């Protein structure tokens, strides 16, 4: 057994100082000095001395601490005889560790500066690959980040700028304008609109479920905990795109993934799953009336099944299946509606091009009820005036004609002076105030003369540029007006010349040849729907069939200008007449005819953004969302259809009323009672005639273990997003320059300036 190596004692052992930076260089040899190096790493051993001269001899002067006077003594030349045993001190472990730490820190800083200091920044800075949808922007950081390519100061400013996330999100909007009007608010809609959504949802889902029982076992525990921390201002705060869309997580990262709990955290109704607690679907799919109104219940259960159907509608075709009228679009999302000719024409074509209908009067001659020859016409200068063969209808002039006459100051003055006498009691006016009555009637004659002489130029001028769309309407009314002028005022040109010269009006009839050339048969058809009705001296228009261009033009203008507060002037009167259910041009007409029939099927919607009204001339088209936050694609569900077909889900209502919804729901009187207003609220009336879709039907497949029951299966977060956006991506990507994306920081112009 050997003796212990280590001894402790102030004489036997040294005091070790491991935290010192330096150790004796002889330590590795096992023979360190007792002094050790200085704190600066210098050896303190001084075994060499500086010999002192004493008389003729040199004597050693080495200090006692370093061994004292040596035996050998200095050399004869006065130098020390000893070897220099000073060591080269080494760094201690502690010091070495500090050195390594400093080196690693410096290298880390250098690496960071290399990564961050580039202009544009190094690709190493990227936190990962972007999704394949954004792969074309992989190396163009400035496209999505305002801080990219900025110098150190600006970079730091962006780091502490609270608006950086929103500024970045604004760059997203360069390529994603479809997100909505308020892209950074919850669901990309204004707060008030969101509240409206919530209110509607409460109203439509508050009723009892169709299945009778809604499974509901409360809300998930995590949501209960989250509710303790949820702020009230969340719905009004701005959310950056990156809140939900986490980029740089790989090419195949699902950028639009959102957990169900995240969806529910903002909603007042919280539940475990679609199967457990989700409200009934209520009016889903039928929440808004169809753009083209069609009552399935009435047609399928009343019209098509009666024995009289083919007798009443000899050209009608009773559909044998749903695909007779509906077909999937190219994406399979929407079961779009076929055209009018395929679906409706068999029964409704003749109804539209109704030859028995008088049509709409556009121009009319007031009847004087007496022969002009019997009037003191020569004295008052009325000239030729046709005599009606039937009793005068006691109706005012057509509103359209009034619009054309409003540019005639003399006419307007006479009309004001006549007051109630014009135009219904003009015979009385001719007796009581002949000069004023004649001025009034000459206004009408000037209109016909103007149209006959100047044609389209006069027509457009008289519309006074107020309705450029009407001025271009086709087929034009001018040829019919010219024919009517020749028919009713054969001496018109001579009369106008004589009146302008102050001469007596001519009384000679035109020659027989000329007269026969001008003479038209009663109710002469002028073509394109226009015709002249001799019996009441009117120029009328009857629609030539479905999609009549003139009526579409008139109705678009009319509906676009509709307002409940409109004053009853000629313009608003004409427009109201056109859109009214009895839009025949005569207030005495009964029932929906002519233009009124268009709006029996084509509903009118109000644009929620602009507030303007518009007619739905077409059924829903692919890409148009029926509900802002709900999406449904038919194609995955087609293979699940039973032998019942579409009826599996779309149950025709057995309890729907068979009463006409026409007047009570389609049109309402405006508040001031001046006109009919089409119903523009797509939520309140004119359903399709189907029962609500049952959630139980969906649950058969949509469970967590089967087809999935994620919120995003059926709901979209952004109210304005299109379901076809991904398919449309590459087309948009090719036009990035066009939409004005940010330029590369070191733009080509800068490069061109540099040598």
């Amino acid at each position, binding site marked *: 057994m050997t003796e212990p190596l280590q001894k402790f004692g102030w004489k036997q052992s040294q005091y070790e100082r491991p935290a010192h930076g330096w150790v004796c260089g002889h330590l590795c*040899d096992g023979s360190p000095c007792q002094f050790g190096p200085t704190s600066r790493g210098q050896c303190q051993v001084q075994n060499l001395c500086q010999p002192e001269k004493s008389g003729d001899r040199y004597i050693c002067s080495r200090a006692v601490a370093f061994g004292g006077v040596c035996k050998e003594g200095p050399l004869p030349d006065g130098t020390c005889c000893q070897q220099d045993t000073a060591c080269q001190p080494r760094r201690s472990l502690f010091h070495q560790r500090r050195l390594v730490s400093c080196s690693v*820190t410096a290298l880390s800083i250098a690496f960071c500066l290399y990564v961050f200091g580039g202009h544009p920044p190094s690709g190493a800075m990227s936190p990962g690959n972007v999704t394949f949808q954004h792969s074309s922007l992989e190396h163009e950081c400035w496209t999505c980040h305002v801080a990219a390519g900025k110098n150190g100061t600006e*970079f730091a400013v962006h*780091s502490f*700028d609270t608006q*950086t996330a929103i500024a970045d999100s604004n760059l997203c909007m360069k390529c994603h304008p479809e997100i909505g009007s308020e892209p950074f608010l919850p669901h990309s809609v204004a707060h008030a609109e969101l509240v409206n959504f919530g209110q509607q949802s409460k109203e439509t889902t508050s009723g009892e479920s169709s299945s009778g029982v809604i499974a509901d076992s409360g809300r998930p525990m*995590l949501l209960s905990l989250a509710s303790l921390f949820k702020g009230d201002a969340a719905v009004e705060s701005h959310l950056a795109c990156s809140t939900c869309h986490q980029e740089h997580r790989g090419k195949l990262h699902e950028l639009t993934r959102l957990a169900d709990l995240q969806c529910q955290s903002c909603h007042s109704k919280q539940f475990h799953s679609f199967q457990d607690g989700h409200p009934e679907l209520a009016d889903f799919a039928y929440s808004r009336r169809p753009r083209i109104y069609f009552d399935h219940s009435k047609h399928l259960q009343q019209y098509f099944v009666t024995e009289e159907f083919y007798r009443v509608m000899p050209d009608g075709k009773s559909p044998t299946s749903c695909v007779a009228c509906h077909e999937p679009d190219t994406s399979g999302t929407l079961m779009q509606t076929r055209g009018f000719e395929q679906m409706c024409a068999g029964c409704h074509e003749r109804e539209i091009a109704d030859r028995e209908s008088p049509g709409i009067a556009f121009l009319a001659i007031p009847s004087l009820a007496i022969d002009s020859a019997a009037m003191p016409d020569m004295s008052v200068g009325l000239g030729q005036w046709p005599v009606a063969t039937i009793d005068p209808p006691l109706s005012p002039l057509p509103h359209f004609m009034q619009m054309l006459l409003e540019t005639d100051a003399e006419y307007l003055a006479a009309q004001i002076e006549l007051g109630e006498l014009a135009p219904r009691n003009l015979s009385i006016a001719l007796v009581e105030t002949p000069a004023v009555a004649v001025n009034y009637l000459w206004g009408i004659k000037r209109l016909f003369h103007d149209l006959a002489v100047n044609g389209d130029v006069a027509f457009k001028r008289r519309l006074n540029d107020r309705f450029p769309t009407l001025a271009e309407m086709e087929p034009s009314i001018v040829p019919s007006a010219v024919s009517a002028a020749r028919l009713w005022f054969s001496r018109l040109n001579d009369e106008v010349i004589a009146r302008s010269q102050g001469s007596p009006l001519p009384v000679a009839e035109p020659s027989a040849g000329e007269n026969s050339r001008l003479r038209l048969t009663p109710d002469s058809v002028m073509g394109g729907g226009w015709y002249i009705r001799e019996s009441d001296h009117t120029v009328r228009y009857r629609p030539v069939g479905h999609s009549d261009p003139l009526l579409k033009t008139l109705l678009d203008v009319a509906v676009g200008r509709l307002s409940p507060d409109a004053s009853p002037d000629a313009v608003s009167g004409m427009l109201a007449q056109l859109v009214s259910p009895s839009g025949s041009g005569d207030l005495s007409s009964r029932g929906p005819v002519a233009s009124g029939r268009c709006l029996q099927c084509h509903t009118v919607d109000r644009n929620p953004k602009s507030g303007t009204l518009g007619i739905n001339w077409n059924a829903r088209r692919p890409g148009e969302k029926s509900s802002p936050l709900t999406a449904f694609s038919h194609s995955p569900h087609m293979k699940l259809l039973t032998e019942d077909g579409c009826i599996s889900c779309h149950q025709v209502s057995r309890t729907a009323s068979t009463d006409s919804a026409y007047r009570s729901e389609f049109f309402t009187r405006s508040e001031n009672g001046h006109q009919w207003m089409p119903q523009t609220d797509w939520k309140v009336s004119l359903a399709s005639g189907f029962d609500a879709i049952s959630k139980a039907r969906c649950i058969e497949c949509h469970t967590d273990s089967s087809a999935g029951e994620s919120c995003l299966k059926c709901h979209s977060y952004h109210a304005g997003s299109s379901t076809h956006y991904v398919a449309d991506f590459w087309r948009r990507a090719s036009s990035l320059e066009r939409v004005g994306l940010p330029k590369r920081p070191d733009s080509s112009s800068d490069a061109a300036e540099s040598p």
Partner: protein
Amino acid sequence: MNKRARRRIQNGALFVLLATLAVVANQILNVLHYRTPFFSGWFLFGLIVVLALYNVRKKLALIPVGTSAGWLQFHLYAGIMTSVVFALHVGLRIPDGVFERTLAVFYVATFTSGVAGLFLSRTFPARITSRGEEILFERIPVFLKQLRDDVEKVVFTCVEQTETTAIPELYLSHLKPFFEKPRNVFWHLVHSGRPRQRLLLEIRGQQRFLSESERKAVDQVTDRVRTKDDLDYQYALQGTLKVWLFIHIPLTYGLLVMSIFHGLAVYAYGGSY
């Protein structure tokens, strides 16, 4: 139940509780549409800073900021907590970018070296005290020289007395390299006595050819061999306990530097609302 076991259970339970709270809080924040990486990132950075302060605390022994043992316990459990927070921060996926991966590698290396240090500091001290004499690490070179000198003295003495070359040859062929510097570090780390046995067998195999006086000299040399091997054992284990900090501490500083840059980038590119 002894004090250490009780402390371990208490601290372990507290750790599990806090880790669970961190996970639940992360889930709640995620549900509420907060950007959870911001929260977990700040939490992680704060933990790393506090953990790094442990090294400062060791140098400020005079300042009363808790006991060193308390700091060590906190350092251990907070260090393990960082792994939970890190997993939440990266979303249990491997970061994709070069910088992000480098940062993650730094964290993983720091954490792994910390775990290794925990293992070493819990196992090596017991082994150090169980074998040979406890020697200050800084004095080991001195004792190595002392043993080398002792053995050479025995050899020279033997040569003078016996005038044979058996012992010097044995010293030159087998013992001189052994006594020159610390040997068999790896075998000592894995707690293996195979090199020591092999050397002793070598010496023992020579004894049958030696005289009585030579055998006494060999016995003295054998004692020195055993002492030297114990000294090597001390050197290997104590050296390892010091060297692992060469990895853990520098990586921590590098991690802090890169975390700061990472935070700047995240705020500049992701916003700071």
